[in-house]
Structures are given as C-alpha cells and as structure tokens.
C-alpha cells in the first residue's frame, strides 16, 4: 500500500537477521547491511526504491514480476534485486538505459492485461501497479491485446471465457480477478504469514489465476479464515476491503491497539474524517509484526452498530422500562443510590468490577473508585473467571504474575507444549507466528481433550496429542515431570543454580512416587502412557522448550495447581530466562493482564501488592488523600453470595457481562436481582443490564486514549481516532461518578492517570505516554534498571530469588460423571467470535458462526439417538439448556464441547459453582452433563428471553 499516511516503508523483502555486516555499492552509494539482505532491501535502506510489484517485506522474495532487475558489475544478465543477496564489494546499478527499457517492456505487458478504469477503481491513488507504471515511465501500450482477463466480452461480443466475475462472498473484502496481476503476494501471505494455505494459483501460464480453495469455490466456501493478510498484501484493487469500496481511500491513519484478544495487535486505524475506513495491521507492532485476524482486521463494526446505547438511562426498578436521561441526571441518581445503600447497609455493601476490555487507566480509576471513594476493597475483575490462577501460580513459583516471554520468542523455540488453549481460534495471530515456526521444524505437543486445529493443519502436525479427560491436567503435567525426573532428563545445572535445591529434593521425592507415573495415571487421564513418555522426552531433550497455555488450564478446581505444575516443568528442564522458552499464558481479553496489574483484585493494590502491607497502603494513602481499608474485599462470587444473603447491594460493573460470562447463571441472576443499585457501564444493553438500574453508555476503543497490556506484558497505546459517540470516554464517566460522590478528581487526559500509576507502581515506574511515543510499546517491568522495559523475565534469576518447586497433588474435582450425568462438557471459543459475542455478534462475523453448537462424538450421539443438526437438551446438576448438535470425532467419546458466544445458548446455565481452590476461578471446563433429543429451547431459555426483552424496553426520552 502506498505510504500516503505514515512513514511505513516497504523494504521489499524481510530483514535479514545476521550479525555479520556486508558493504556494497548501489548507484555509487556505499550501503552496509546484514549478510543475507537482498539487494532490493539494501537499496531501500539507502533510500533507493527499486521498482517492484511481487515483492513486499512481509513475505519472502519470489522474483516473479521482473521489475526489480538490476545490473551488477562483473555478473551476467540482469538479476532480480529481490532474490539476489548482497555480497561484499558488489557494484550494483539500479537504473540505466537497458534496465529502463526492460522495466517498461514488463509494465507494457502488465498493462496490456489490465483494465484502464483507474479513475473509478477503488484502489485509485493506492495502487502499486499505478505507481509502478508511473515510476518506469510507461507512456504507451502498443499491443493489440486479443486475449485478456479483464474484458467481459471479446471484440465480437461473445463472452470472454477468461473473464471471472468479482467474488464478493466474503463479508469484508472482494476478489476481482479482472484486476489481478498474478503477483502471488496473496497466496504467499496466506501461506507464509497466516499459514492457512487457503489460496493457490490455479492453472498455468496465462491461465494462472488466484483461487481460493478448490476450483469453483468462493472465498467464503474456501478454507479462508479472513485474516486479511492477502488483502493487505495485494498491490492492486483485486483484493479490496469493501469498506474502501464504499467509502474511498483514507486520508490519515492513527496507530492503535486491537480491543479483542490478549495478543494485543497493533493496527493503523485508517480514517477519512471521523469515519473509520479500515483497520490495517501495523507492521512495526511488536506483538503481531504486521499480521491480524478476522476480528481485529474487520470486525470493528460493532462500534457503530445500531444497538449501541449512546445516552445514559436509569430506572427505579428492574421491571421498569429504561428512561433516557442527561449525564448529570444519571450521575445524581446513581450517586444518591450508592450513597444511600452505603448509609443503610454499610461501607462494604457496594463494590466494583473492572473491565479487562477497558484501558489500564480506566481499570485503575474503577478500583480507585472503590478504594478511595467507596472506601472498601470490593473490586474484582473478569480475570477472576479466567487467569487468576496464573497470577497465583506464577507468583508463587517465579515471583511474577505474568508470562515470561515476548511473542517474538516463539521464533526461537524448538519444542512447544500447548495445553488448554486453542490458539488458531482464540489467539490467531500468535497461532500464525507459531505455525510459521512449526513449519520451520519446531515440534509440537498438544495437551487438550479436543483435536484442535493446530494438531493437524496444513504443513503443521503435532508430534504428540495427549487427549486427556477434562479435569485431569494436574495428573498429566505431573506425569510429564515424573518421566523427566525418573529418567534423569532434568537440567540439574539449572535447578541447582536457579532454584531452591532443598525444595527441589522435596518435590523430586514427591513426583517420583509411582502413582505419578504415566502408566498409573493412564486410567484416570485417558492419555496413553507411551505417548506421554515420548512427549516428556521430546520436551526435555528437544532444545528450547516453551509452554503456552490458556483457560483450559486455569478454569478448573485445580487451576492454580496446574499452573504450578507447568512452572515446575519449565524449571525442571531449564526452560526459563532466554528466548525460545518460558511459560506463556495466552490471555483471553485485550487488557486482562492490565486489569490485573492495575489492582483490580480485592486483595491487591496496583502492581500486585497486598492491601495488608502498611508501607504500600501508605504510598497510596498519601497520593489519594484517603485511608485505605487493610482488609481484602469481596471477590465476584462472594459479592453475589453476599447479595443473595442481603449484605451486598450496589455494584458498578464496567465493560463486563457477568450474567453471561460467569458460571451458574441462575445464581448470578439471583445475586443481581437482590441488589438495589446495579450500574452497568457498557456499549450495549448486555445481559447483566437486564438487572441494572443505571446504564452508563460506554465508549469504544476508537474513541479514547489509553493503554492496553497484552499477554506478553506489553503496554500498547490506544489512541483516540474519533470523538466518543456517547459523549465521554469511559475514564471520564468513572470520574463523573466519583465526583458525583464527592471525590474531586481532576484528570483531563489519561496520560495524567498513567503518570499517577507510574508514580505509585514500581514495575510501571518508567512508563509514560512520552516514552511510549518513542518506544512504540513497553513490556513491564519498566524502571530505572530496565528503562526500555523487559521482553524476557527471569534472565539471571527469578524475580522471587530462587525458583520454587511446589508439590502438585492431583485431587479430582467434585464434579464427577455418574449414571445421570455421564458426559463431560468442556467449553471454548471459535475464531470468528469473541468471548460472550457482544461485539462480534454485532458484526458480519455471524456469517461464520450464527449459533453455538454442541460437539459430540459419533458414538455418544448414536446411543442417544442424536443426529447432526438436531436440537438437543443439555442438562447438568445446575440446569439445562438446549442447542443444536454437531457430530464430530474431534471430541473423544464421553466428552462434549460447546462455545459460549451466544446468549441464547446460555452455556453457563449448565456450569457449576465449583472453582479453583486458590483463586475461586470457576471450573468452566468440566461439567458432568447428559444430553437428549429435544424439540427446541428449554423453558428457562424461553423465560429468560422474555425477561430480557422486558428488561430492555426503553421509553422515548422525555422532551
């Protein structure tokens, strides 16, 4: 794409990584570049743009367009500068009479098969073919082209068989074969960058055509995952965003951060006026390195969806319809209620839930609201229900509550264990980076009850898939450690120097006990012992070993134990403290790391410092000018329990839908219904809002400044590209509420909030918007010793000093299968949808996933008379719901699986209130269920929908 907005130059070929530098001469200028650099890139670094069409620096050189030919003194012919590496002393000429003629000759051929409708073309002004025709000085096309791909009819008026009409099956982009120059950039991007291999060149010679899937497939029917890499790579209008076709080319661009998953991709929000034209992955983004997935790239339409609520609303009673009011009125109403509750039921009768989707600054303000204005520690966050065991487990063993690596680390890994994560769906951009490494030869071990896509993908095969029974993570990971220790495969040097040797002795005594052997646990876990042994040996001996895990680890009654077991495994094998190794939680939401960092938990002030700690409290007390409670507050489940008991009455819930996302929906509903003031601060009337008294409209990530912290502890800037449609950024709304309650806050920009965070939080001491502007992003800790942040943790020693081995006794969950509930339900997500779907369901992504389906093994389906697509009833000890079945052997017999993106499904009606022993993280991933054929939605679903419809009524604004 033309760099009309930002200096985001395309160097033509990827950077070489060699440390050895080579000096050559290009057009008389000396250029020094790393060995392995292409002549094209070397020229670009010297400011010389060699004409090119098939080269772009996100993919390997291909050498097909033949525009970038150069002359090298002493060498024959005219080599392509993209495929020819530099060599010391080369004298290269990029422009002379012969080269000019050659390039014009090539361009003349290109243009002889290209429509000349530039003025009305959607890529007008943003087309490399157009640019190159200008660059090479093409003034005339002398061919009388007979055979073309762009004329719908030939000269006699007959249909041109070579003409393929535009494919607009994908909701976000079109493929117009008439404009294709067959540079293969899209095909190569799909292969090299995304790793899906959905595109190919069909036919040969002049009949070479870009084709998605099999011959005759449309883009939508193909394996295309709509990541947009091909669209970004296309130099012409052939693959074009529909938004650009509709709106026109953008006029400015702002770098910001995606608000979906925890990968935290950097994007250029390309704007025309205050209209977002498109989101383009930013190639200098250090998490994504120029890649994107369908959600971040395309699914931003929810921000302007008609369902979005733009005015504050209140109601006396949750059975009343909503009443739109002014911001001032809403704040007065809310402040009065909350104050009234506190007066009546006590200081601790209210609390907050911070959002993992909002910025660090916003999460910080919300917890500050409860600590400094409500005067209690009743703050919790959705991390409670996802990664709280990560915080606990890694904190105990290593000393920090976060992943140890940056995403770049995956480029140097040799053996990867994925456990309880489905990166191709949940963290697609990371998955693409991982798949690239796997295609280079790294080995993969997957521990998952389900055969997830990455186990058997195009040119990617897992060496071992250990399909464990849900709920047996600890037994499996401990068995891996058992094999490593009993077979003497551990890294004793590392353990002796970096960990506490006595603790290791104790751990070794425990883990070598025969009941931890794979043979002993096989019956329990369902994982064949021989496979497990082979996997353990591979991990221990295969080079740099890294572990990536997700909610399949944490959302269990032994979630924290599994995290500890994973940490033990990494320490045993010495896989901590250098690139290519580490323990890497894949965070679910864009800012779940940040919301935890910001003191959202009831026992911790920002920076994971306990509220009992007087010194820490003193710092905050001095800054905030208040006395902070030294008792930890309530966790979400405790808040709900207290609400049912009648002691907890008011809740400010920002950017979080606890009714849909928290376990045991009926219990959550009962808790909410028992409260007297539920304040929902969100973009949409979410499910929780059905029980709310105050609705404060939220702002999207496009409408405010701030920062998100991704899974690699990377603080990325979120930039305001348009004014908030609701009038205020979320941080401003929280401040309005605080001030309505008398706080007197005076923040005028989030940068001031970050400055306050930096002042109060040692690991953020060096973070400021100024520094972020310079560095692009910062991985905490960032302070005087690490002024540019910390990509890798625990390099020379663990943060806690010596790494701590902890025994990991497997204790089966109380949620057990039996005659009534013989199947185990586990849950997950799908690429096109995100979390509870509030955002993605309001985009064209529904074309890929319009309802949640229950995956069931053919054997289990057969014995229950369940057929593919049939409505089935799914019942657990907690409740029942219904959804359609899909029959697949991706799941093992005895295991069923569903996603939780659609509120109609209400998968959490089924889940129980069992939770992690250490952190209360709910046990979403294991529920004993039974299924049976059904006629449609359950009574509960019907009632629920009725209640929701009733609760969502909005009265017209009073004039």
């Amino acid at each position, binding site marked *: 794409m033309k760099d009309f907005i930002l200096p985001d130059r395309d160097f033509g070929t990827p950077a070489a990584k060699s440390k050895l530098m080579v000096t050559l001469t290009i057009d008389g200028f000396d250029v020094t570049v790393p060995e392995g650099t292409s002549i094209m890139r070397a020229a670009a670094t010297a400011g010389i743009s060699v004409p090119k069409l098939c080269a772009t620096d996100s993919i390997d050189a291909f050498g*097909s367009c033949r525009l970038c*030919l150069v002359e090298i003194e002493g060498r024959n012919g005219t080599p392509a500068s993209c495929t020819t590496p530099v060599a010391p002393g080369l004298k290269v000429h990029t422009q002379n009479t012969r080269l000019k003629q*050659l390039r014009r*000759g090539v361009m003349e*051929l290109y243009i002889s098969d290209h429509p000349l409708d530039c003025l009305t073309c959607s890529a007008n002004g943003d087309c490399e073919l157009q640019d190159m025709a200008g660059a090479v000085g093409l003034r005339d096309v002398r061919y009388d082209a007979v055979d073309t791909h762009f004329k719908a009819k030939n000269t006699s008026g007959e249909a041109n068989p070579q003409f393929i009409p535009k494919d607009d099956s994908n909701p976000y982009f079109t493929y117009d074969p008439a404009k294709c120059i067959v540079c293969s950039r899209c095909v190569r991007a799909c292969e090299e960058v995304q790793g899906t291999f959905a595109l190919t*060149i069909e036919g040969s010679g*002049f009949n070479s055509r870009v084709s998605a899937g099999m011959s005759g497939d449309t883009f939508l029917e193909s394996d295309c995952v709509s990541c947009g890499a091909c669209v970004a790579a296309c130099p012409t209008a052939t693959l074009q965003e529909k938004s650009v076709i509709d709106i026109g080319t953008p006029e400015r661009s702002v770098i910001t951060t995606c608000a979906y998953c925890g990968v935290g991709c950097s994007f250029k929000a390309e704007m025309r006026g205050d209209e977002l034209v498109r989101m383009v992955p930013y190639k200098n983004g250090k998490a994504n390195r120029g890649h994107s997935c369908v959600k971040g790239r395309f699914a931003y339409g929810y921000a302007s969806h008609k369902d979005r609520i733009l005015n504050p609303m209140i109601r006396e009673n949750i059975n009343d319809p909503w009443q739109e009011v002014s911001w001032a009125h809403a704040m007065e109403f809310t402040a009065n209620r909350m104050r009234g509750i506190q007066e009546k039921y006590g200081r601790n009768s209210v609390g907050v839930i911070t959002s993992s989707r909002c910025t660090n600054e916003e999460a910080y303000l919300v917890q500050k609201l409860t600590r400094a204005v409500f005067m209690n520690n009743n703050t919790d966050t959705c991390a409670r229900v996802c990664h709280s065991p990560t915080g606990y487990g890694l904190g105990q063993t290593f000393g920090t509550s976060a992943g140890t690596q940056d995403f770049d680390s995956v480029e140097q890994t040799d053996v990867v264990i994925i456990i309880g994560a489905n990166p191709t769906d949940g963290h697609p951009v990371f998955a693409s980076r991982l798949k690239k490494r796997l295609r280079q030869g790294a080995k993969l071990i997957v521990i998952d009850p389900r055969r997830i896509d990455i186990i058997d993908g195009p040119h990617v095969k897992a060496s071992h898939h250990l399909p464990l029974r849900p709920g047996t993570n600890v037994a499996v990971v401990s068995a891996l450690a058992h094999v490593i220790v009993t077979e003497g495969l551990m890294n004793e040097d590392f353990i002796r120097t970096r960990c506490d040797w006595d603790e290791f002795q104790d751990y070794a005594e425990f883990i070598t006990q025969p009941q931890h052997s794979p043979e002993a646990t096989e019956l329990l876990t369902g994982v064949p012992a021989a496979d497990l042994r082979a996997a353990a040996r591979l991990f221990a001996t295969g080079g740099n070993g890294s572990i990536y895990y997700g909610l399949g680890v944490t959302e269990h009654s032994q979630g924290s134990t599994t995290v500890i077991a994973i940490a033990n495994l990494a320490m045993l094998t010495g896989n901590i403290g250098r690139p290519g190794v580490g323990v890497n939680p894949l965070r679910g939401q864009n800012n779940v790391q940040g919301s935890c960092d910001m003191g959202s938990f009831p026992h911790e002030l920002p920076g994971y410092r306990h509220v009992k700690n007087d010194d820490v409290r003193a710092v905050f007390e001095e800054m905030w000018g208040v006395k902070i409670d030294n008792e930890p507050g309530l966790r979400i489940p405790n808040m709900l329990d207290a609400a049912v008991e009648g002691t907890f009455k008011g809740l400010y819930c920002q950017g979080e839908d606890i009714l849909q996302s928290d376990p045991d929906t009926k219990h959550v509903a009962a808790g909410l219904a028992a409260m007297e003031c539920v304040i929902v601060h969100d973009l949409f009337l979410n499910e929780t809002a059905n029980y709310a008294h105050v609705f404060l409209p939220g702002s999207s990530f496009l409408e405010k400044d701030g920062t998100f912290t991704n899974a690699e502890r990377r603080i990325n800037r979120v930039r305001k590209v348009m004014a908030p449609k609701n009038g205020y950024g979320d941080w401003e709304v929280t401040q309005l509420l605080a001030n309505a309650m008398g706080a007197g806050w005076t923040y005028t920009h989030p940068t001031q909030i970050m400055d306050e965070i930096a002042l109060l939080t040692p690991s953020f001491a060096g973070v400021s918007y100024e520094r972020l502007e310079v560095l692009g992003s910062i991985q905490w800790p960032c302070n005087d010793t690490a002024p540019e942040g910390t990509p890798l943790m625990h390099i020379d020693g663990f943060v806690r000093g010596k790494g701590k081995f902890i025994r990991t006794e497997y204790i089966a969950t109380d949620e057990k299968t039996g005659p009534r509930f013989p199947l185990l339900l586990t849950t997950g997500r799908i690429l096109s949808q995100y979390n509870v779907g509030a955002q993605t369901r309001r985009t064209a992504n529904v074309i890929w996933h319009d309802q949640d389906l229950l995956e069931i093994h053919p054997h289990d389906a057969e014995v229950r008379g369940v057929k593919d697509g049939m409505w089935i009833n799914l019942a657990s000890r907690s409740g029942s719901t219904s959804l359609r079945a899909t029959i697949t052997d991706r799941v093992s017999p005895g295991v069923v699986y569903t996603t939780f993106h659609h509120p109609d499904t209400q998968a959490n009606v089924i889940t129980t209130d069992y939770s992690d022993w250490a952190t209360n993280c709910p046990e979403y991933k294991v529920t004993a269920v039974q299924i049976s054929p059904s006629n449609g939605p359950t009574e509960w679903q019907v009632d629920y929908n009725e209640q929701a419809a009733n609760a969502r009524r909005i009265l017209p604004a009073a004039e």
Partner: protein
Amino acid sequence: MKLYLSCDAVAKALGVDAVEAALLAEAARRGVTLELVRVGSRGMVWLEPLAEVEVDGIRHAHGPLTAAAVATLFDAPSGLGPTDDLPWMRGQTRLTFARCGVTDPLSLDDYRAHGGLIGLTRALAMGGNAVVTEITESGLRGRGGAGFPTGIKWKTVAGADADQKYIVCNADEGDSGTFADRMIMEGDPFTLIEGMVIAGIAVGATKGYVYIRSEYPDAIDVMQKAVTLARPAGMLGSSVLGSGIAFDMEIRVGAGAYVCGEETSLLNSLEGKRGVVRAKPPLPALEGFLGKPTVVNNVISLATIPVILERGAAFYKDFGLGRSRGTIPLQIAGNVKHGGLYEVAFGLTLGQIVDDIAGGSATGRPVKAVQVGGPLGAYFPRAMFDTPFGYEEFGAKEGLVGHAGIVVFDDTADMLKQARFAMEFCAIESCGKCTPCRIGAVRGAETIDRIARGDPAAIPLLTDLCNTMKAGSLCALGGFTPYPVMSALTHFPDDFARQKEAAE
C-alpha cells in the same frame, strides 16, 4: 540362431512386437532354434525395427524389418552387413551409449561383461573428493542444455553442510526431436543408476530420484525394474558394493509439464508442489529438494559418469572442441533421411551433421533451416552450416546446443509460422510465474499474427518483446523463446514481409 531385436519404444512404435511374433513363427515353421535377445536401440531410427543376426559371432543388421519380410532374415542372415560396419555406426564414438543396443538392458551380467561397475568400483576406491576432481577435470558439462560444468556443481553440493543431500536425475526430456535420455534409460538403465550412485558418493548424498516424464512409460518400466534388480546386487542399498556407503533411489513420474524439465520446477514437482520455477539464488546445489543440497543433473550427464570413471578424465577430455569436451549424443530428427542418435565428439559442423550424417531432407527438397536445441533453440539457415557443434560456438551465433536435438526443415517451412509456434509453445508451457513469459508469450503470438496480417509496426514491437523476454524472464523457457523467434525473423526476413491483405 541368435537374434537381437530392439525393445526400444521407437521400435515398438514401428511394429517390432509384430516382427518378433512373425520371427518366432517363421523359426518354428523352419524348425530353427531361435535365441532371441531383446536389446536397446542402436539409434538408427530409420532402420527400426532393427534385427541383428549373429553370424560367426558378429551381429548383422536387418532393417527396417516388417513382419511380412522376416523370411529374408533366415534366407540371407548377413542382411545389411555387420552392424558395427554401417557408416552410421563407424562414424560414432560411443562412450555413453557404448552398451546401448548391445546388451540386454536388464541383465546385470551383461552390464558387468561390458564394463559396467568398473567406474563405480574405482569411485569407491578413490573417495568422494577425488571423484569430484575427476569429473571436473573431464570437462563434462551438463547435457540437459545449460552446459554448466558438472564437476563445479558437484563441488558446491559436496561442500555444503547438511544432514541430507540428494541426487536428482532430470529425465523430463521434453525438447522436440530429442530422445537420448529415453534411449539410454530403455537401453542401458544400469549406467544411469551407476552414475547416480557415483554422484552420491562424490557429494555425500544417500538418496536419489529419477524424475521421468509420464510420456515415457517404457523408460519408467525399465528404470523401475533396473532399480529393483540393482538392490539385491548391492549396487544400491545401505552398503553400495559392500563399501559401507549408503545410496538408494526412487523413480518418480512427472505429470506432463514441459517446464518441469527446468530444474527448480522439477524440484517443486518432485516435492508434490505446483511445477513453478523457483528464483535462483538459492541454487539447488545449496537449497534443492526439500531445501537440502541437491545435485540436479540430466540423464546423459549422469549416464556418462561411469565411463569417465572407468576410462579416466583425460581419456574423456581428449574428445571435443574448445570448452566443449567429450562426446555429445546428437539426436537427428525432423525432415531428414537418416534420423536417430549419433554420439560423437563435439566439433562437427552443422553442415556435416545435416548433409553427411543425416543425408539431407527426407523429402529430397533443399534444407531451409535447422532448429538446434529443442523448441527454444535457434533456427540456423544454410549460410550458418559451418558452425561447429559446441556450446560457445553456437552461443556466438545466437543459438544453443541445448540437449543436442536437431530438427531439420526443408524449403516448404514457413518461418513466420515457426516463430509463432515458438511463442505458442511458450504460452502453453509457461508455468505462469514471471510476467515476461506469462503475458509475453501470448502477446508474442498475437503480435506475430499482426505481422502475418501485414502490419509492419508489429515487427519492432516483436523485437522489443523478445528483448524483454530474453533478459527479463525467470527461467530459460521465457528467456530462450526469443531464440527461435528472433532467428527466424533475422535469417528469414522474407517470411515476415507479408503484404497487407487488401481490405477491398
């Protein structure tokens, strides 16, 4: 009565199997005991089906033989006289093809009895580096067409550090009028296998592939059988001839694309990918099959290795002219009196080949042009028949030796049509990767059509296009298509000077 009968595909096409049946019947009728050996072709295509009768231990030629005329063979066994005394055979220096047509292709005993495995035994004794040196000193250049020194290529692969290396034999012989690869594979498959094993020893490769075009079912069959026979004989396997050095190979079949004879698209095809050309660098010698260092050599190059090792570099190098050393199997075809394979030292002039060896045109009309080097080779007019057969000598005349296919045209040939055919061929066979070839070939044919319609402005456009294709194409397909086009245009301008057809 001992009788040798060709089993080559050419002989089969010309009815040798019916001849065999007739011979057996005739022998039975006469009560003669027939010892019939099927051998490869002697390369005298105009004499196929060729039968040879052993008289006093000397083979006497009979051909072309028809089923109806087999009786003559019993009545007058001396036929055309001793095969080796035929002028076609006497004029040759058969090194690569020494056994072809002489031995039973699938008899290892025959193979050994005629000098087989001497080269391999010597190679094992001298070791890889010495073999590379020997091949370099022999002056052998790639017989596939590019003429790159084989020893240098091997040295690059030998010097590459890798856990696995490969020998890939390019048997995708697609040039018009060429058949040397097919003939040696059908007539003396063990020499190719031996050559590949020696190559493996030389560079440290343990696995070889022969990529044979699907249009060669007989060659595929013979090679597969030969590989199967070579394993128990110790020619292939974990310890070649008991040396402890491993080498094994597989026969792979192409899918009909001419461009897969280009080494990098061949490698793609061999890997199961689309047969598109790869940019070089990286050279296949460093990143070839499956990204590993790979020797990609033509059948004839590899089949010549055993004789070089057997008789020494100096012996081989003694033949030839200038920088073109050794012998070249000329394949003479088209409108000629005597077509076939003629192995001879480099250096004969084109005139000697066309007029003396081939005997001029089959039609008896004057020879107008000769296309040397396949469909991408230049057309030589009679005025250039003094050009000696050698890589540099042909290059200097804007032509190429290629795979040494020689196709003769008489004076009825329309060189504009031939030029158009070259563009059309390129358009059909283009892999579609690079622009000059993908679009250029189509525009080239269209532009020649304009010339044919009498549009003189199209001639400079065609010339410009040829320059773009020649210098701009990624591989020799697009890069060499201008040779036949421009040679036709340059040497036969009259064929391009069409009158504008009157509109009235």
